[in-house]
């Protein structure tokens, strides 16, 4: 401590970053992308929760409502076209997959000390992004009737 106190070299100062002047040129590491996307996907699912429960409701309540559920995605619902509903569903699919994979990454880091390293942080973050995006493409192709 005395060494620090008597040092004549000026110490670097770290201040809060500014959204407009600092954030635009800030290069986020893969783990940072996973982290902020974890939040974005969580908030997205939170806001779309009524839509999710509407899907659960109409798909599971009766055969008639099940048919209505299917029709909504093909020919639209009220003033909302079907393709838009599919797009919202696709966003939810991505959000769930990303949140799921990033959550497993969190749990893994909680139970394993080996997983808490700079290297694993990067490789596991890239794995989360890869797996969740690949699965989103596969399920999205199914949703839009590619196969």
């Amino acid at each position: 401590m005395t060494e620090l106190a008597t040092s004549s070299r000026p110490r670097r100062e770290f201040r809060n970053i500014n959204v407009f002047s600092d954030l635009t040129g800030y290069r986020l590491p893969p783990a940072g992308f996973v982290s902020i996307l974890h939040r974005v996907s969580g908030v997205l699912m939170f806001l779309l929760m009524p839509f999710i429960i509407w899907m659960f409701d109409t798909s599971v309540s009766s055969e008639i409502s099940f048919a209505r559920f299917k029709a909504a995605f093909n020919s639209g619902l009220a003033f909302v076209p079907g393709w838009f509903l599919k797009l919202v569903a696709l966003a939810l699919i991505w959000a769930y997959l990303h949140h799921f994979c990033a959550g497993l990454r969190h749990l893994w880091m909680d139970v394993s000390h080996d997983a808490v390293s700079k290297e694993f942080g990067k490789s596991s973050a890239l794995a989360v992004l890869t797996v969740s995006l690949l699965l989103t493409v596969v399920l999205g192709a199914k949703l839009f009737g590619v196969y």
Partner: protein
Amino acid sequence: MAVNYGSKRTVVGAHYGLRDWLSQRVTGLVMALFTLIVLAQLLIGGGPIGYDKWAGIFASQWMKVLTFVVIASLLWHAWVGMRDVWMDYVQPVGIRLALQIFTIVWLVGCAGWAIQVLWRV
């Protein structure tokens, strides 16, 4: 660095609170396992997924109880997460409180609706 322990300890922010941290892990794990259980039931036997198969999954009592646990877990999990978000990005106490109240009302409302649907099957 400013003193942030003792009477000056940090009591706000996303990374404060062991109980919140643990409950979010536990509820997350419950929902992840539930996802796998539903997927397994959907894919068992193959073939197209119609109404009977889909609704049949939620017809049994054990599945109803499990789904109920998942709805409760989701409520708790999302509360901790949204609270973290509000605490990190919304500094004015009044607005933050309003958003937290909105979150609780939103989540409890959604949970009630989901539970009602569940027991309608």
